[in-house]
């Protein structure tokens, strides 16, 4: 596939070139930088779709370029393009472009646009690398690169303490996960003899090699860190210190989903035990993060918990054995969660960087486009029927029940209960957010003066919110797939595009899962979901009221609110661990370092080396006489070798 590899290489190099151009020439001219970056994002979007349409719509394409060949040792830069890669590429390219567009409006008053847009381009480069990589080594390199760009962008407001602390936290917590990931890669390479993902999967599929639980669990560490799953979820809420477009792009739509994507890619080599682990941790996360979201006043932090919960849903789908469904939910989630974040960005921008929900209120009238987009995305994330989220999220919940009903195991009942609770909490926190922020009267001067944002920001909201959050899932609705709007829409799209949508979402993911649910014959499952959602909205509407200036839960039950706000005391636990355990250990190591390594080994070695050097230098007497003797000694020395 010569054309494919060329196209993929170009696709990968465009954002890198953009970052290089910005860093070299436009660091101080923000306008130029933003245009370079946005145009690059546009090219990425176009090329991504060209690549998707050029792909036949089924099977997988591989191409590799030898990077370094030494005898029989090869390092290759390879691409693996299949259904999940196509979906992920579409998400990164399409949503990435609109978030770039949004950034033009959002960052208009920022003094460091050059750095910001260069960072976005670097991120796009690294993310595309993850999407296309066909082997674990290459994947890991780009994995670390997204980590770096995330670190850099979280710390965009580096002169604020909380931002630099948050970026450090994100970086360190990710390192913990990546450590396991790296060991997993080495083990996998040792065990399979290759790090190529499709080759590994083929070895397992043909029965030549068994799955190894340890490898799966170690590789899962990377996913746990990057997708902020239990117990490494603590960094994501703090990461909201970055600019809102970054939160939307990196910490909601794409990078955090890379963990899910990675698990889907290596699905073939995961053992049942690993899948159960992923199932449980994901299912617990859906409820746990949902509860935590209720304890946040900061609109972005609340949304961040919602992201955690929905990453939990994706993990649950993987654990259920439906990787395609996880990818579908990833794509749907990318649409509505990006919308929610962009809406919050629009609101925050309009309110002059006010992030406290209880200081907003009544914004629907002042910012109708934003408000409606937020409403649609809220309905979508809560899985109201016929919105995008309904198709994926509801199917995850229903198929969990379906698996339990057909006797696959008791753990699926647990997953079902937790995910239903998660759905209830989704409705609760989304309702709370919408009613508090958009209804009632303004609670602060800033909110009272808020105006609808510029077209740069509203256009992405309309595309992602009004259109995609609503309709992205219609491809799978029976009767709509392939013959959308009586065939009118289908004729507008290339055949491959429709095939891709159906292949990527429909056959592999949604249909299989949906069939499991259908087979159980439990129609009440869907009704229960709907009831949970409606109950959640109704409860919050009456409990919190329209546009309140304070959280009623916080006022009436401070102890409960406090408990929710501390989000399970994870931070406190880690602080205690770092301060009491790790610090002690570090002190001991520090002592050893200073006395043994620095004192004896380094100083000693440096001393020996220096002394030897001085001694040898003294041989350099400068007298030709002695130099000639050196030559004679040298010949004797050579003779010793020749004679023995």
């Amino acid at each position, binding site marked *: 596939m010569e054309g494919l590899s060329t196209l993929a290489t170009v696709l990968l190099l465009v954002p890198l070139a953009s970052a290089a151009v910005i860093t070299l020439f436009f660091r101080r001219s923000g306008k130029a930088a933003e245009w370079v970056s946005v145009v690059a994002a546009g090219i990425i979007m176009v090329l991504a779709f060209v690549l998707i349409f050029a792909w036949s719509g089924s099977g997988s394409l591989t191409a590799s370029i030898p990077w*370094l060949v030494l005898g029989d040792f090869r390092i290759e830069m390879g691409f693996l393009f299949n259904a999940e890669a196509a979906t992920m590429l579409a998400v990164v390219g399409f949503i990435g472009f609109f978030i770039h567009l949004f950034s033009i409006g959002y960052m208009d008053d920022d003094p460091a646009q050059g750095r910001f847009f260069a960072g976005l381009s670097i991120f796009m480069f690294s993310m595309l690398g993850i999407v296309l990589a066909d082997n674990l080594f290459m994947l890991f390199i780009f994995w670390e690169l997204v980590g770096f760009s995330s670190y850099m962008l979280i710390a965009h407001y580096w002169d604020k303490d909380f931002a630099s602390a948050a970026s450090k936290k994100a970086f360190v917590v990710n390192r913990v996960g990546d450590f396991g990931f790296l060991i997993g890669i080495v083990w996998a390479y040792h065990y399979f003899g290759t790090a190529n993902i499709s080759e590994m999967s083929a070895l397992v599929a043909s029965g030549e090699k068994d799955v190894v639980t340890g490898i799966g669990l170690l590789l899962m560490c990377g996913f746990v860190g990057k997708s902020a799953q239990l117990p490494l979820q603590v960094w994501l809420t703090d990461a909201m210190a970055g600019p809102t477009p970054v939160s939307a792009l990196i910490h909601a739509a794409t990078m955090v989903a890379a963990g899910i994507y990675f698990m889907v890619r290596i699905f073939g080599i995961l053992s049942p035990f690993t899948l159960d682990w992923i199932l449980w941790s994901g299912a617990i996360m859906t409820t746990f993060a949902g509860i935590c979201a209720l304890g946040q006043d900061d609109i972005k932090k609340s949304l961040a918990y919602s992201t955690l919960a929905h990453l939990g849903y994706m993990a649950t789908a993987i654990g259920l054995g439906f990787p395609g469904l996880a990818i579908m939910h990833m794509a749907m989630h990318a649409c509505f969660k990006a919308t929610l974040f962009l809406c919050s960005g629009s609101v925050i921008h309009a309110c002059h960087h006010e992030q406290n929900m209880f200081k907003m209120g009544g914004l629907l009238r002042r910012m109708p486009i934003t408000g409606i987009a937020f409403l649609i995305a809220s309905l979508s994330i809560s899985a109201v029927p016929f919105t995008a989220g309904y198709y994926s999220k509801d199917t995850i919940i229903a198929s969990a029940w379906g698996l339990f009903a057909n006797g696959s195991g008791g753990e699926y009942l647990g997953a079902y209960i937790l995910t239903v609770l998660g759905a209830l909490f989704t409705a609760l926190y989304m309702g709370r957010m919408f009613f508090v922020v958009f209804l009632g009267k303004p609670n602060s001067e800033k909110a009272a003066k808020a105006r609808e944002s510029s077209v740069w920001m509203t256009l992405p909201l309309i595309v992602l919110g009004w259109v995609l959050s609503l309709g992205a899932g219609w491809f799978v609705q029976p009767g709509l797939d392939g013959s959308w709007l009586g065939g009118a829409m289908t004729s507008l799209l290339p055949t491959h595009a429709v095939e891709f949508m159906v292949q990527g979402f429909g056959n592999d993911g949604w249909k299989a899962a949906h069939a499991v649910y259908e087979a159980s014959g439990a129609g009440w499952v869907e009704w229960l979901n709907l009831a949970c959602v409606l109950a959640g909205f109704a409860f919050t509407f009456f409990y919190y009221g329209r546009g309140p200036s304070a959280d009623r839960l916080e006022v009436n039950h401070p102890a409960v609110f406090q408990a929710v706000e501390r989000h399970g005391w994870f931070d406190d636990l880690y602080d205690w661990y770092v301060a009491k355990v790790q610090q002690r250990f570090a002190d001991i190591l520090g002592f050893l370092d200073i006395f043994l390594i620095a004192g004896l080994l380094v100083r000693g070695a440096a001393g020996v080396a220096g002394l030897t050097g001085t001694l040898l230098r003294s041989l350099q007497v400068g007298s030709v006489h002695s130099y000639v003797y050196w030559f004679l000694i040298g010949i004797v020395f050579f003779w010793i070798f020749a004679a023995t």
Partner: protein
Amino acid sequence: MNLEAFQKIAASNLWGNLLPEIYLVALCLLLLVFEMVFRRQDLLLLFRVALWGQVLLLVLMGLSYFGGFPSGREELFGGLLVQTPLTETMRLFFLFGSLLVSYLGTRFLRARNLARTEFFAITLLVTAALMLLVQSNQFVLLFVALETVTVGFYVLVAYARTSGYSLEAGLKYLIMGALSSGLLLFGIVLLYGVAGSPDLAGAVGDPLHFPSLAQFIAAHPDNTLVLAGSLLVLSGIAFKVGAVPFQIWIPDVYQGAPTPVSAFLAVSSKAAGIIVLLTLVTGPFAALSGWTIPLISTVAVLTILYGNLTALPQRNVKRIMGLSGIAHAGYLLMGVVAAMTVDWAVGAIVFYLFTYLLASFGVFGVMALLSEGQDADQELDHYEDLAKRQPLLAAALTVGLASLAGIPPLGGFIGKLVLFIAAFQAGLYTLLAFSVVGVVLSIYYYFGWVREAVFRVWRSAEGAGSATPALPEPRSLTGLDRTALVGLSVLTLILGVAPFVLTWFLQL
């Protein structure tokens, strides 16, 4: 010999294949004629003729590759010399080197009242001889080419006639060079005598010819005269390479010689030595691998350790370059040992040589630009805050030194990496361990230099008064200076990140 044999030899006298060498010698003569005609010692004119003449040759050689880069092995002049892709690459290497030496020479000569034409003329002549040296397939040609190189260098090292350092260096180089040439010649004579001796079975008709000699040595690997002869030859080559224990002349000579000549010695002369050694140990001395492998391995370890350890306490930058150059010769010797068992290691050696050429000339270039007045006594202290005074020079220096130290993503890193992988595949684990130690040591002194130049180092108040006075600021950089330094840095970077270059080299 009968007529047919003569005809066969005559048919192999393809002078066309020697056009680059002929061109260089003609250019050298042209320069000398110019001097007679114009009599003005017009530096700019001479320089332009020398430089553009060489650029033209580079272009012509480049054009000739449109028909395909030479492949395969071709013996010419009745087996006197042999041409392979390797020798063709080395020709380009030497031409590139002499181009840079000519450029540095201009900077050097401009500030001094010295004869000018001869510098370029001798450089060109030496380059032609270096080209012939790596192509030689017979000891007479090898010796003649080697002597042409060495005699040329006698003059070049002592070129700064007004400087005591330079004269001393020239004298030392003369004595050491003559001694080593004597050893080499003695070795050749012994080999000639024993291999041509009709008393021994399998005596060959043309014992100076490498393949014939290889046959004879394969038949008599334990003959004492063979041993004595080959070890004397190897000693002579070890002098060129600067391997321990024949390295002793290097610091003095490098320090005293004019900076362009130091660079020439460090890069081109050393590279020629390595290639000749490679030709010998894989050619005529292949049957002696029983003792040449341990010998060269030990020499490589000693060379790496000696070079790095003696460079550690140095403050004089030319001596640092000289001594660290010894260490680089050590890594290359490791490559030679690896090449005796691993085929593609030859390509790794040549790649390493190219990265070494680019990085060394970058560093030497900065040194030459900074030392218009004083030449031999540049200390590290003179580089204080260079980044502030001359950002471009500091950047080029940093790239060059980092590449020499083997820091990614520069060419030097990949060069070391492939060399080490070759050694690993050849199973030279001990040697590899010492090399790694050597690299670690080298980072210390290379980055000590970078630190002086780039980072603000705290200095005590009383120290400030007694500090070495800074060198006079160089005259403003010309466009050519910028092009050369930026070009070298960029090429260093390209060698580090573009894998296809490496892949091409590894096919050699």
